[in-house]
């Protein structure tokens, strides 16, 4: 049966968010480099980009899942 567009969209979001911020596996953690150290506000990130003239990797996500905190 064809799924409603909203449900498909929801699935994509769930998969993206859950996977995007999942901690690296123990195997991945061993060799350098470790993980990405994120700036968490645009003010800080933009200032740092101006200061260092480096490009910006920008990600945004809501820190809750269906209004339940503790999960992207």
């Amino acid at each position: 049966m064809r799924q409603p567009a909203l449900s498909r969209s929801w699935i994509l979001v769930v998969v993206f968010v859950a996977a995007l911020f999942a901690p690296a596996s123990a195997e991945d953690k061993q060799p350098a480099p470790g993980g990405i150290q994120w700036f968490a506000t645009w003010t800080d990130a933009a200032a740092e980009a101006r200061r260092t003239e480096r490009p910006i990797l920008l990600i945004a996500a809501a820190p809750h899942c269906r209004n339940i905190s503790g999960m992207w």
Partner: protein
Amino acid sequence: MDGSFLSDRAVVAASRGFVCARLLTYESATEATLLGSLFQGRSGELENTTFALLAPDGKTPLARTGRSPSFAYGHGSEAVGRMAEAMEMIRKRYPGKRAATAGAPLPLLPDVRRGVNVAACDGLPLVIVIGRDEAHRRALEANLAPLAWAEGNQGAFLYASTHELKDLEGLAEVKRTAGYAVIAPGTYGADGKGLVQVPADATAKTIQAALNRARGAFAAPEKSQGDHVRDGKRAGVHWDTEIPVTDPGIPPAGKRGPPPGR
């Protein structure tokens, strides 16, 4: 998208030439305006997630902006490699004028409340800088910053700071004294428990030793999305966002939406 984009070794290595920003959607009206200017889905509203690679001016897109890296690099096993290659090309185009992390400020979450929540989302320990007052807090932040950007610590901790003791409510085994406390977040990021704590006058060596101890003592709990949401609803957990959620895939508070994990 598959899950390997931002934990892929080549992407992480390439990210060292970037300023990496992970904003909290629906937690800032100002940032919502920025995110909305970068990407809007078919709904025309700000959606849950955004991905962009931008020039140092913070405005010029360097790749296709979208809801995830898949918008720019597609799907499948080779997509991550395409992203890493593209980032390396951008690094060469924008090498920066300073060593990547020299003099970088402490990468702080907006406040302790959001810090604890994001730590729970990530399954990482949270370092809380506790100052006697604002000036003291800022001095402690500056002192900790070089350690935060040490290669071995990057991606291993999150950071928040305060000089208001009320911000520490809900955090067990954290002394209400100035210094650096590392906490393990609770399941829903509404509370936490102290792992280690060192005083404000601790040396960098002492702080690093505390970070190492905290890392060894911390174990991220396994979480399944369906169980987390179901159990959270039963427990009465509810995250209040700063601004209204507009993603059409996320039901308004109290309304039934698509079942989690489906």
